[in-house]
């Protein structure tokens, strides 16, 4: 192409981001194919490293990684391990070169924070820097970014998912969906190979391990079970090798952050080299020291116990899916750490089959995320594909004696809902607290505390009279929402949420304002972009609906919709965000009844399995009733 024509009104494109422990990627579907977007040096991988310099300078990626040698304490690596974690998390006591801030209040202790250069940052802010860099890469390549799918380990709990969503919000991105990494990989794999069957996805990344068992059937990716460990990964291989071989060889009695960083770097280089070689010499930066020789057998011996710990999760996922290894069509390998030969050997042993690794294990998750983003916000070319995913960890409420009452078991397909009824235990009691936990253990103290929900505004009654119905809903992102109703009066109760870990809404809002240099201008510009994206999406959906189901229109309805559509298209061409918003609402109002009829017809068609023609006839009947009712009303 001779001219790269920049069209400011061209529709922004949805993107997929793999926000990884060691590396992150961004991908997009163009001309029907998902591809990773490259930086100006042609690299797809962005090292998930953020360096904080003096005077508020922030460097992300390879440049940050290069600054790490000199400034180990001001450079954050593997931030994903800290997402949604409290200041007292065991993760803060592992081998690391970071300085952790000491919390001074219980509120501060809900989030781990790092002291870097002249400030203190949370993992959400660090992740937002990585997301911003990737979004900027996408913006350079595409005309605009219209919504993002971000992948998370399937085994991430509610707090870790929420933290990821907060980071995206802070980076100014509209999250279309959080997508589980193994499901993303299966989507990319399934779309590429067009194969059906039952697969296990074994995903060993830098800092997390996931296993997912799913069925691929006629475009539906149905997750049967998932399991894993959100604090286990390839980084642990580096640590094991560093602690067992490199640190002793360096001969430093009390290694400081820079020596520890160096040991981890050398270990990682040795690990990479041992993928293709049986033996590697590690040159030590110490005068007169002989090179350290590490063999693959030694590495295998060191990492084997770590790898074996993934076996229990795999067996459990198979049990939950009620399958034996022989019933699997194949095992898909994902994540950079699955390049280690010992991992492949273990997977072969465990599942009794040669694992599939013909897609790049580093890129496959991002490609799947891009495909899902296209499904959610694209032009509808992939309408036959659907992902049915599950809740990874059981949700429960703490009851008397600290015992957990499970309300939604793990591997429940989301969206899902559970209701429980409670009563008051004191006369005129107007408040009620619920402690929600996530995990499989019997005692609340052994599970992960999610939040305390306080129900307020219960009408004063004698003890035991009020009947509180609490609804726990988990959305398609795997995030929990709680609502409550008092059944005898039917009053909807106010629910206050105190998350055990993570930032509350106010804190995110504050960061958001602080992050915007030009406050209001930026916000206005962003709002215009968002309204345009949403407007274009609604217009496109309406056009498709009209093209598909014109037969469902009532006389005169088409004209009303056409007029609202023209108004919306004109508004999108303008620069007034408010006008676009109103035009969008008008169009939705104009299509409301039509949309309801479409859904009823689609459900009827799915249930009856009839041909569309039959459905149209029965819908003709339904329209008759509707028209009759309309006539009666007028």
């Amino acid at each position, binding site marked *: 192409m001779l001219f790269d024509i920049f069209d400011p009104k061209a529709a922004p494109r949805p993107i997929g981001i793999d926000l990884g422990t060691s590396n992150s990627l961004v991908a997009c579907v163009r001309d029907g194919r998902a591809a990773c977007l490259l930086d100006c040096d042609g690299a797809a991988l962005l090292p998930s490293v953020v360096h904080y310099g003096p005077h508020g300078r922030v460097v992300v990626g390879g440049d940050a990684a290069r600054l790490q040698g000199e400034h180990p304490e001001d450079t954050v690596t593997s931030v994903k391990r800290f997402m949604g974690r409290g200041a007292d998390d065991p993760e803060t006591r592992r081998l690391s070169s970071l300085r952790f801030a000491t919390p001074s209040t219980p509120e501060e202790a809900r989030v781990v924070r790092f002291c870097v250069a002249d400030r203190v940052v949370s993992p959400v802010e660090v992740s937002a820097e990585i997301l911003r860099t990737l979004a900027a890469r996408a913006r350079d390549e595409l005309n605009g970014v219209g919504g993002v799918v971000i992948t998370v380990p399937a085994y991430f709990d509610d707090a870790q998912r929420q933290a990821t969503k907060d980071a995206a919000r802070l980076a100014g991105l509209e999250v279309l969906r959080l997508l589980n990494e193994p499901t993303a990989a299966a989507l990319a794999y399934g779309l590429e190979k067009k194969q059906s069957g039952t697969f296990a996805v074994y995903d060993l990344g830098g800092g997390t391990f996931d296993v997912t068992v799913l069925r691929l059937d006629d475009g*539906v990716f149905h997750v049967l079970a998932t399991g894993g460990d959100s604090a286990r990964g390839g980084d642990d291989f580096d640590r094991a090798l560093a602690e067992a071989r490199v640190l002793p060889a360096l001969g430093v009695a009390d290694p400081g952050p820079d020596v520890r960083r160096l040991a981890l770097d050398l270990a990682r280089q040795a690990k990479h080299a041992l993928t293709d070689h049986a033996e590697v010499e590690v040159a030590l930066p110490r005068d007169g020291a002989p090179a350290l020789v590490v063999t693959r057998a030694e590495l295998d011996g060191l990492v084997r116990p770590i790898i074996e710990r993934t076996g229990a999760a795999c067996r459990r996922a198979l049990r939950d899916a009620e399958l034996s290894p022989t019933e699997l069509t194949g095992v898909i390998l994902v994540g950079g750490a699955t390049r280690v030969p010992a991992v492949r050997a273990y997977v072969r042993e465990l599942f009794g089959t040669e694992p599939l690794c013909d897609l790049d294990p580093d890129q496959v998750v991002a490609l799947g995320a891009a495909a899902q983003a296209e499904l959610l916000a694209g032009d509808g070319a992939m309408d036959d594909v659907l*992902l049915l995913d599950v809740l990874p960890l059981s949700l429960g409420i703490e009851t008397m004696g600290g015992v957990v009452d499970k309300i939604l078991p793990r591997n429940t397909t989301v969206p899902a809902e559970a209701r429980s009824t409670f009563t008051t235990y004191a006369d005129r009691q107007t408040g009620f607290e619920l402690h929600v936990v996530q995990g499989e253990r019997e005692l609340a103290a052994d599970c992960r505390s999610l939040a305390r929900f306080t129900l307020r505004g219960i009408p004063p009654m004698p003890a035991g009279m009020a009947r509180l119905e609490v609804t726990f809903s988990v959305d398609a992102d795997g995030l929990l929402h709680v609502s409550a109703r008092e059944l005898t009066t039917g009053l909807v109760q106010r629910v206050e949420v105190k998350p055990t870990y993570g930032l509350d809404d106010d804190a995110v809002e504050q960061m958001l304002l602080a992050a915007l240099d030009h406050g209001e201008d930026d916000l206005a510009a962003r709002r215009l972009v968002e309204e345009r994206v949403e407007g274009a999406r609604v217009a496109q959906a309406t056009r498709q609906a009209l093209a598909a189901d014109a037969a469902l229109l009532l006389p005169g309805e088409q004209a009303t919709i056409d007029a609202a559509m023209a108004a919306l298209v004109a508004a999108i061409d303008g620069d007034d965000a408010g006008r676009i918003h109103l035009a969008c609402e008008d169009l939705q109002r104009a299509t409301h009844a039509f949309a309801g009829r479409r*859904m009823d017809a689609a459900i009827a068609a799915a249930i009856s399995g009839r041909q569309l023609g039959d459905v149209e006839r029965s819908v003709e009947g339904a329209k008759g009733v509707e028209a009759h009712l309309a006539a009666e009303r007028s």
Partner: protein
Amino acid sequence: MADPFTTLGLAPTYSLDLASLDARYHELSKVVHPDRQAGKAPAERRRALSLAVDVNSAYRALRDPIRRAEALLARRGVSHERAAPTPEFLMEVMELRESLADARLARDLDRVRRMADDARARRARVTSALGPLLDAGRDADAVPLVAELRYLARFLDEVRVIEEEAGA
């Protein structure tokens, strides 16, 4: 909660073809799943979401041999919650659980697995006996079998806990 057979538009029979249950579930999900509501108005999204929740929950119920039986009995207004299996069965289950506890203490995972296999085989037998009874409307004969299935399920849950405890 609505009757799962009605939600999925399936004929209320116990001997359900699981492949067609899956197919129906997938077809309906393609209509109501939140991922399919891009560009829809908030009110429509909410409606689809609650339908998606119902469809998921109905599918889960019908996939489960016990809950499928319970759903059929509930449709016919037959009470089944407090039904007990035969005394012989209860004795047998008691003995089974005792020897499961022994196997656990002896850390004899192989024995635990053999017992689990037996329980699963038995569950399969009870399930296949249950189908014809329920589908012939012989609810009084079916109810004790449903209770047996509940006991077997609890037994297999214990096995699962033991297996997970052993890291297997």
